[in-house]
């Protein structure tokens, strides 16, 4: 009990201590706001700009979730295709790896030209999808391939159709792997959405990355920090959300004890 209490209290007090030290350092050293704003300045900036910032957070959130869902759906679909045909896997996997190893920043201008400069949001979405796609593909592929030999033989013994094998064995078996991939992917979708917005600009809607650029250009460092904090909070919320979904879905999965 005490251990559990400590595991919560220790990081909490460390965080408070860090904030206090930061606040004291800034005020005693008279560090200007445009170099390092105090935590209270950042908090004030959040309150002052909360409408802009919340709207931008929502826009970044929307792009991230959309990119994450499209990337996950595509990746699972392609992994299923891989599981059905070795030739499809051999043909498509190298292309997927090429997308994975190409830095998103390098292909952003190209995507932007293709979708048109007026459709920057689409470019951001596509780039975020590219970044988020691979972990789900690799993990789903691994999960489907990891099916225990005996289970696979059991399905062969009863002459299961490909369809039944896929939906009653391979996909359920791969679920923990898929969710691990999705947990990585949701963070990458956020990173992809932010990096893409830095490179591609924001179009008509402004996400958090654009707020950071804008605040940086105006040397409004407290607002820059505020946007950064919201980005971190958004990332943590998305990760916790995925962890919760994983926990709920995997209540029945317990390979070790079986």
């Amino acid at each position, binding site marked *: 009990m005490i251990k559990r209490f400590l595991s919560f209290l220790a990081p909490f007090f460390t965080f408070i201590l860090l904030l206090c030290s930061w606040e004291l350092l800034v005020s005693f050293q008279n560090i200007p706001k445009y170099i390092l704003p105090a935590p209270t300045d950042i908090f004030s900036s959040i309150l002052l700009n909360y409408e802009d910032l919340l709207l931008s957070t929502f826009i970044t959130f929307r792009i991230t979730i959309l990119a994450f869902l499209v990337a996950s759906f595509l990746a699972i679909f392609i992994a299923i295709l891989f599981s059905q045909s070795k030739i499809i896997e051999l043909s498509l996997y190298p292309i997927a790896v090429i997308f994975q190893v190409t830095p998103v920043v390098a292909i952003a201008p190209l995507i932007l030209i293709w979708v048109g400069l007026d459709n920057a949001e689409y470019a951001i979405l596509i780039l975020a999808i590219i970044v988020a796609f691979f972990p789900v593909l690799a993990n789903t592929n691994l999960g489907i391939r990891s099916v*225990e030999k*005996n*289970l696979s*033989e059991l399905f*062969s013994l009863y002459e299961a159709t490909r369809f039944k094998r896929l939906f*009653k064995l391979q996909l359920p*078996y791969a679920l923990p792997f898929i969710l691990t991939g999705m947990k990585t992917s949701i963070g990458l979708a956020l990173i992809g959405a932010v990096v893409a917005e830095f490179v591609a600009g924001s179009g008509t809607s402004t996400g958090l990355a654009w707020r950071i650029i804008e605040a940086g250009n105006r040397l409004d460092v407290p607002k820059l920090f505020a946007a950064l904090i919201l980005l971190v909070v958004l990332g943590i919320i998305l990760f916790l959300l995925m962890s919760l979904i994983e926990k709920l879905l995997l209540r029945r999965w317990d390979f070790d*004890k079986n």
Partner: protein
Amino acid sequence: MLKFNKIYKQYDTPILGPINLEIEKDSFVSILGSSGAGKSTLLRLASNLIQPTSGSIEYLSNKKPNIGFVFQDPTLLPWRSVIDNVLLPAELTSKNAKLSKEKAFFWLSKVGLEGKENSLPNQLSGGQKMRVSIARAMAQDCSLLLMDEPFAALDEVSRNKLEDDLLDIWEKNKLTVLFVTHSVTEAVYLSQRVLVMSSSPGKILDDVIVTEKKSRDDSQNHEFFLKINHLTNILKKESDE
């Protein structure tokens, strides 16, 4: 029930062969042998899961029987309840759902798991999981039951109990059992016939008929001991070679 005609199996190296063997209908046959003797390969060949490199397997009346397979581990789907695991083969073969459910409940109660139908596999003990695996095989009205060291991972008490229950199932149902094991005592206790296999490549080294009455007390029986000694000596000799 089952006839192996000059069976050979080879992957990179020869695994098995030649195997010429006839398994009588409704008999209980155990296969003994050291690791790598090809015992499991023989079961997989019998179930048509793998094909022989050469030779053929004949079933009685040239018709593949309903085969039940019990693996070394329980091979349960962890996300499915006990009853859903037992119903899995019926789903895969698209059998009548109502009838299958009745049979699944019947066999779960037969193996002593009444009331556990909605439990998940991870809520069961090792012995109980193996019972689910047996119920799953039996619920398909199998006439040929293939068992690949099913009780190897169990403690002695659970193992003895399951052995007795298996004998009971075998005696009350028209069933041919092919049972792979490492344990000489288990093989002699359970079977009417024990096949001893040599390794690299696996061949039938000896074919021993067991006529002694099945009872736990027989372990004190002189004849029972002689048979165990005889089989143990064959295995020892084989491993020394």
